[in-house]
């Protein structure tokens, strides 16, 4: 679980946060509602999760609410991994 959280957080920071931003992004930082990740960019995050964890997320699951924090993303992925 923690390993997955770290991996997702690392991806989010690498892809969506600029190096010289002072932003402190953690497991519970709002991603969608804060505007760090916009609704179109959510798709690349979804593809990352599907490839890395070999799962398929339906459009009904990949909602802005479910993707709003690293914690909620990991909960969603874990549901698929059983």
């Amino acid at each position: 679980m923690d390993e997955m959280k770290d991996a997702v957080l690392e991806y989010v920071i690498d892809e969506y946060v600029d190096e010289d931003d002072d932003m402190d992004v953690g497991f519970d930082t709002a991603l969608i509602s804060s505007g760090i990740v916009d609704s179109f960019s959510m798709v690349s995050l979804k593809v990352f999760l599907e490839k890395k964890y070999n799962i398929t997320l339906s459009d009904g699951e990949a909602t802005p609410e479910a993707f709003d924090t690293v914690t909620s993303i990991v909960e969603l992925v874990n549901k698929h991994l059983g």
Partner: protein
Amino acid sequence: MSNIGSYEERLKDFDWGIAKEVLGWEDGELLNIGHICSDRVCARGQADKVALIWEGFGGKKRTYTFDDLRVYSNGFAKFLVDRGLKPGDRICIFMDKIPSLYFSFLGVLKMGGIAQPLFSAFGDESLEVRLESAGTAAILTTRKHVKKVRKILDKLPELKHVIVVEGDESKLKGEEMFFDVEAAPRVEEFESYVADPETPSVLHYTSGTTGQPKGAQHVHNSIWGQVLTTSWVLDLREDDIYWCTADPGWVTGTSYGIIGPWSLGVTQCVLDSGFTCARWYEFIQDNRITVWYSAPTAIRSLMRDGVEPVKAHDLSSLRHLASVGEPLNAEAVIWSEEVYGLPFLDTFWQTETGAMMISNYPDMPIKPGSMGKPFPGIEAAVLDLKTHEPIQEPGTVGLIAFRPGWPAMFREYRNKPDIYRSKFAGAPEDATPDELRTNTDLWYVSGDRASIDADGYYWFVGRDDDVINTGGHLVGPFEIESALVEHEAIAEAAAIGKPDEVNMEVVKAFVSLKPGFEPSGDLELSIMNFIRKKLSPLAMPQEIEYMEKLPKTRSGKILRRYLRALEWGEDVGDLSTLEDD
């Protein structure tokens, strides 16, 4: 009773002069959109009225009066003049929906500059082509976005001023300037530039099938179209609390997110945070919003979240809803009537038209799924696809077209007279933009297809070209393809729109790879993120299909229409020019 009253009655003896009556305009008044939206409202006794209720992420909330609008736009105008900027200079506004975006937009217009707002999610390449095309002299941005400007500054010799309006001043680099208008001394007086009706005002970039985006130039005279459509279609009244969800980087966000409501002295709300269903409903509830102008993509996202979030909020303040950006499907209209007790009224217009052209109106019966009828004063038709003659037969599909001459019509594509001319059916080869826009024997062809039913209602069919409409934003395939082949793995590429339940279309890319590269999940993600950062999240392919070789004509041109037809399950048409294997 709505502002428009009877649509049919309004068609009789229509005159655009009615817009002046709506505004209480007197001969000899100063024509300048920046002035009209701030100083003029104050002078009419509404200085202390709330103009802007702004909310950002994390509970940030600020409220500004029309007097604040006046003073802060004065502040920007004076700052720009003091830097040596002059009337006619293109001044880009590149920031999120923060209050300074709105103040600076009015400030640029007040000093006679041409406001060039750009969507803040654009990557550095999208930004560069638009600044280069416009010959932009100054850019107003924030610390968050100035990094993209730094990457391209060396390639833009005409860009002399980079002004950061928010953030930490100590982080500025080189010759960048810092200007926080709210912290600066208040500028109580500024003499606004006296604009001619044809003085350029706003420059919005829009995408086409071929080539880079084109700058559609608007003028101060556009205000008459924006005022009257705001009054008659959005039905805004003095006591309304209005929310236009569009970003001013796109034309809806300026025509109806700034000019329309503020020229009429209406209070408006801005939410500068990411989309979640609960946050939007909370925003409506907390601010007692009465009129809401949004987009089908957002409406369909709200539909997907169902009725429970609606029940959890008090949305009883809403009295009128409208939609723009892409066709609003009948299901969404019916759903909104069921859950909000109000239907969303669809409106149709474009960057080029500057104001609404075909709409549904309060008090006019709605046919769910229809675009409605032409605005009074707008002569519209659907033209035969080949002859470009108006189609008389109800239900026959043709090209949506308008007789030139409405007030908010774009005056040119910046530095592209041939492309401007190509938008007019039957245009003489040597006609200038001024001759074209005033020749009422011509038709301005919109690039969209529709049919008209026996009752005069228009029904949208689709684009007449390869431009991708995603979430209400037009994205040019050429721009995406040019960026795709800059990826180290891609040899050739084609981009099309593929159907999407929420966004109408999303970008799909077809690529062939260079030797040494193999299709993989990692590569797909790398390509997606490459385009997202270089162009924008809107342009990011949401699906990538690998092909050994892309279909081409015998002359070597990639057959985008063939790929699109396959994707949409349509007839692929004449393939006689297809290259042999």
